[in-house]
């Protein structure tokens, strides 16, 4: 019985159908199904499948993003029920995400945010053109495990290093892992600024983030 519902949940994510995802979440609440189970045994499977299809070239970015959105919609529908039951979703980690100061490129960073949150990370997306001080304040505030820094320009890429240096000064560098991304970022650059990881695309970023928090 629940199996069937879980499968529909996964399918709603695969279809990128937020309305269906929400309707199924409400159905689960009414039926008294554990909201955590709905997430882990239902929706998450959809996210994983889309991720695999994307990695193998069968799915494309719109499918990926819509799946992430459907997942998000489902989780926020289930949220009140989780609070009522006093249960919390075990998150894989907390990620502070931003496009660095002077850079307004958003799409890649948002994609990473969508996929990380769909995959079970708590994501704090600070948006674009974010100064290092603001990023670090957020890292401290939420006790982040990972900070993700996006830059699309070679001229703004240097800000990624600036954030790392600031984290170091405050003695936070050991505690928080740094992921960098964006078109100009190379493996050489990652090594040079002593970041912890990078990825070619949003699906790859999920894998890197998981391994950085020891969840892979």
């Amino acid at each position, binding site marked *: 019985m629940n199996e069937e519902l879980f499968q529909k949940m996964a399918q709603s994510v695969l279809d990128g159908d937020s309305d269906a995802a929400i309707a199924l979440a409400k159905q689960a609440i009414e039926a008294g199904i554990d909201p955590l189970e709905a997430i882990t045994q239902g929706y998450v499977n959809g996210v994983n499948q889309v991720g695999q299809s994307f990695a193998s070239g069968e799915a*494309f970015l*719109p499918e990926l993003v819509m799946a992430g959105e459907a997942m998000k919609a489902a989780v926020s529908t289930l949220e009140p029920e989780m609070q009522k039951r006093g249960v919390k979703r075990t998150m894989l980690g907390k990620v502070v995400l931003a496009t660095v100061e002077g850079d307004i490129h958003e*799409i890649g960073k948002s*994609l990473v945010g969508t996929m990380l949150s769909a995959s079970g990370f708590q994501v704090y997306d600070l948006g674009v053109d974010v100064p290092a001080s603001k990023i670090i304040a957020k890292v401290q505030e939420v006790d982040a495990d990972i900070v993700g820094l996006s830059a699309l320009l070679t001229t703004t890429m240097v800000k990624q290093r600036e954030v790392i240096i600031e984290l170091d000064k405050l003695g936070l560098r050991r505690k928080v892992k740094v992921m960098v991304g964006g*078109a100009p970022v190379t493996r050489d650059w990652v090594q040079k600024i002593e970041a912890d990881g990078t990825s*070619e695309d949003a699906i790859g970023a999920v894998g890197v983030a998981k391994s950085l928090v020891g969840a892979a």
Partner: protein
Amino acid sequence: MTAIQPRLELLTYDLIARILDEAFQLMQKPGIKVQSVEAGDLLVKAGATAEGDVVRIPEKIIRKALDTVPAEFHLYDRDGNPKVHYGGNSVHFDPGSSGVHVLDPETLEHKTSYAPDLVRLVKVAEMLPQYDAQSTAIVCNEVPKAIGDLYRLYIVLLFSKKPIVTGSFSLQTLDIMFDMLAIFSGSRKALSDKPQAVFDVCPSPPLIWSDFGAGNLIDLARARIPAELISMPLAGAAAPVTLLGSVVQHAAESLSGIAIHQLANPGAPIVWGGAPAIFDMRHGTTPMGAIETAMIDAAYAQVGKSLNLPTHAYLGASDAKIVDAQAGLESGVSALVGALAGINMISGAGMLDFLACQSPEKLVVDAEGIAMAQRLLAGIEVRTETLATALFEGINFKGDFLKQRITRELFSKEQYLPSGVIDRESIRGWQASGSLDTFARAKIRTDELLAAYKRPDYAPEQVHELQKMVENLAHKTGMDTLPSLE
């Protein structure tokens, strides 16, 4: 809402009239050399005058023939579904045919072609949706010439269900090839009702119909199996140096062919096709990738369309010797010219070295250029109620269009999604995948297609009947067994 189909027209209305007028003049003076007695008799009976084998054909014979030629017809697949529309501005592509070499993807040698090479080509073309038809793409050199043509057809029939662009090497084998096709149609009558193949027939430039060519026309007309005229003016050598002069010669050769064909059987289907080229004045070669070659094609196709005839041309081929940048640009540019000219069947994909060498890997690359041409032909369509304003709802100056349902629904209609042959990775992604060039990627894709290929699901008795037929014919030419296909 329907999109505008982009069109390339190189000739004014007045110029088309002049081309036809001069073609009619050429058919009177010097006339057409018709080396088939039967074809000559048909023309003379209809009112032409003959002096030896030179026949002067008056305009009224041609006009009458043009009245009875069908403006359109379909080619069917082995299951009887219409797959190719000859007529109007429909555009289809098929691999180039009759290569004598294949490009060895490892050594880059141009090797003599054998039956297993044809099998490989047919399989790859079968897997690529860009090719609406197959062709008898190469000569199988281990097979005696006497059955070389039907043997190619045999292989294509065994491994493909798509319609076939083919041709015969002799008048005797043509009839056998009809029988081979009829196995899958059910009968000769069913075959002519729903033809699965079109047969190329070539006049000899300048202004000659050989005994074989004209005989082919007559036999095809009587069998009511579609014929495809392949006039080959060679501008500057076997035809006038001007592009227009060559177009006039093409018209005279083709119109006289149509007259013979329609006199043999009025109403039989025939295609206004060709394989012209300019003559390279430095090397004495016949460049198929030259832009002027494509211009002659586009121009004669326009003449054919003015006469309401189905059209064909040889484009999408290259004169390069390997699958390199020249191969890509010549094939892509000329395929695009043919597509924009609205030519019904464009043959030539896969071909290198002046149509001498076929390559499955090039077929795979060419499919991407063809897909781009097809996307261009599909044009820009209105797919949403408002063009943009409604799509901006909730966007609030953010690049969030990826999150819109409509993006997911429409992206694969708006965009042609290329195969891995086309590199659109970031530099890092490209490096991580091995820093491969187009040819290397094409080799991988070719292997993937061959691995995914499945043979047609024919009734075993059909395959058996076909094999028996070909085995018997092979015995008569002194072959004990049919060559291996793997």
